[in-house]
């Protein structure tokens, strides 16, 4: 009874809703506008904000969270969640250190090994979620704890330094493009790559399909388990890359660092307009979300606002971002 009514109501609204690109991308537009507003505010508040060195500083501090958030975006669009990217990143950097420092592998092999290890963790997450049917929250929570513990065990709870690995710190600190740290370059390249994969590739289409209606996707003849594993593995690979980039920036693998990064990555994804219910989201939104957080932290610091207040502000930003999204949906539904 209600079903019939709902359909007829939607039919009536149909001409009005056939709207275009702007409405479809509104959340990204809003996020981008907020980024501009926040940046304008800080540049007025402090002359030190809008300088080249400060901007690259923001980008540099955003790089690691941004890379994690890229992979997380895919997982969240499927309607899943990945809580293991923070400590997974730590374990990946510890493994990179093990390969390069302890075992003395050549640089490229060690770096590739670190990234592959991240992908392996993602694969295990995907297997647990898709084949063993463990809910993503639980499966990746378990992986988060396992990775946290293993990072401490393998490193012997002490940082591992890369002093004897020539060229390693250049992965983040060098500048292939003059004036732009490589970590920022990596973030940009990965963003472009992820955007193409999500919006153009068959993997991206299935990512949205899974999040929209997993059972309908399965009945449509798509190997849902396989693609879920691929998507979690992809998120794991991004985790591995973030691990390498972070280790190169710190010139060390820090086994105690990383917990909480997953929540910041999720926050960036959510601020960027990706729905935790799945089926909706974008890479551009995620990067804007990550930048908003980076700018806020940096700007508040420049204005000498204590660090404790910075996280309060970010929490409020998340609430505002998600609430505007809800308002927008209601406006569309009515």
């Amino acid at each position, binding site marked *: 009874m209600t079903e019939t009514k709902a359909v007829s109501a939607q039919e009536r609204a149909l001409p009005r809703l056939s709207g275009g690109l702007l409405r479809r991308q509104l959340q990204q537009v809003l996020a981008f506008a907020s980024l501009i507003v926040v940046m304008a505010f800080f540049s007025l508040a402090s002359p030190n904000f809008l300088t080249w060195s400060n901007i690259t500083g923001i980008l540099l501090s955003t790089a690691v969270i941004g890379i994690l958030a890229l992979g997380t975006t895919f997982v969240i669009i499927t309607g899943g969640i990945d809580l293991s990217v923070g400590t997974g990143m730590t374990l990946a950097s510890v493994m990179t250190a093990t390969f390069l420092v302890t075992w003395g592998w050549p640089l490229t092999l060690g770096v590739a090994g670190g990234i592959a290890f991240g992908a392996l963790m993602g694969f295990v997450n995907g297997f647990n979620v898709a084949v063993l049917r463990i809910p993503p929250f639980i499966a990746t929570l378990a992986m988060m704890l396992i990775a946290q513990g293993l990072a401490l065990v393998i490193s012997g709870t002490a940082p591992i330094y890369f002093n004897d690995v020539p060229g390693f710190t250049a992965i983040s600190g060098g500048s292939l493009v003059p004036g732009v740290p490589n970590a920022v370059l990596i973030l940009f390249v990965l963003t472009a790559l992820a955007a193409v994969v999500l919006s153009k*590739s068959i993997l991206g289409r*299935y990512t*949205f399909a899974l999040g*929209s209606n997993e059972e309908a*996707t399965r*009945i449509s003849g798509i190997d849902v388990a396989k693609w879920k594993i691929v998507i979690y593995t992809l998120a794991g690979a991004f985790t591995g890359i973030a691990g390498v980039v972070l280790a190169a920036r710190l010139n060390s693998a820090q086994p105690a660092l990383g917990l909480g990064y997953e929540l910041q990555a999720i926050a960036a994804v959510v601020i960027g307009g990706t729905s935790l219910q799945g089926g909706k989201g974008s890479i551009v939104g995620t990067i804007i979300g990550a930048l908003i957080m980076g700018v806020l932290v940096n700007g508040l610091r420049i204005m000498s606002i204590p660090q404790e207040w910075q996280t309060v502000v970010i929490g409020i930003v998340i609430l505002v971002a998600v609430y505007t999204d809800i308002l927008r949906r209601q406006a569309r539904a009515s």
Partner: protein
Amino acid sequence: MEIAKALSFDARVLIMDEPTAALTESETEVLFGLIAGLKARGTGIVYISHRMEELGRIADRITVLRDGRCIATLETAETELREVISLMVGRRIEGEARPRPPSGDRRVVLRAEGISTKGLLRDVSFELREGEIVGFAGLMGAGRTEVARVLCGADRAESGRIYLRGEPVEIRSPADAARLRIGYLSEDRKRYGLLLDQDVGFNVTLSSLTSYVNALGLVRDSQVREAAQTYVDALRIKTPSLRQRTSNLSGGNQQKIVLAKWLAKDCDVLIFDEPTRGIDVGTKEEIYALLNDLAAAGKAIMMISSELPEVLRMAHRIVVMCEGRVTGVLDNADADQETIMEYATRAGDHGGIR
């Protein structure tokens, strides 16, 4: 529940919008009793329904609306239901047409042998032939949908074999079924058929997406659009654009989208589970025409339907099920509503007439 709530208002005028859509037959009888009681107490009732039989039974006058306009108001007692239907459609509907028997030798495309499941099905066997529509009749819970779900890989059978053109096949998942070109249109299109929050073009090309992908795994958008547009045009899906969200379309157009999805996949075996449920009369006719066209094009079609007139009108052969077993397989020429109902109620008689 909703109905009880409405009744508790003690209203002078009561509007009921498809009240029986979610009710079983016995519950419907109770509702009709209630309506008769309300009528006797002087309550005015606006009863919206697309179920003709219901209107014939309980309405005093019937108002026909089409495309937002009031077409006519008729006294039920003086009106043939066929007249109402033709007013709704805006064109005359052919009478009790029966399908023409398909000509020539029809090769067996799919053969099921002794399918049993843990839950319901017991030793289900039948054949689907090229160019043939096989109707599956039976009461609710007879196991027709369960058969369909086994064929399309959504559920696993406990025992039994499926042959495709004589070759035994294993269907472990819907992905296997799709590879074998078996498509399934669920009775619950919102749950099992559509990505409601995605657009029309995406839904139409979901199953066939791999055929529009280049070597790098990138989707050729122009081909996707072209293919989607082809099917939107061919099936006359009413949508302002390919980018329209599927949830904004009417039930009939949504059903056509699910159908288009499997046509785009170029399936040889199409399983329709209640293809005209919750669809307006005009679109129903279009779906019937499509089914006939598909059969004429050589597809093997399994059509589950609880509406006997629909089965009699469309199906070349009719498989009747009761409580998980096949109780009868009839040629259309030998079938009428009474015969089908007889087989459909043969609980306990497990002879399995063939």
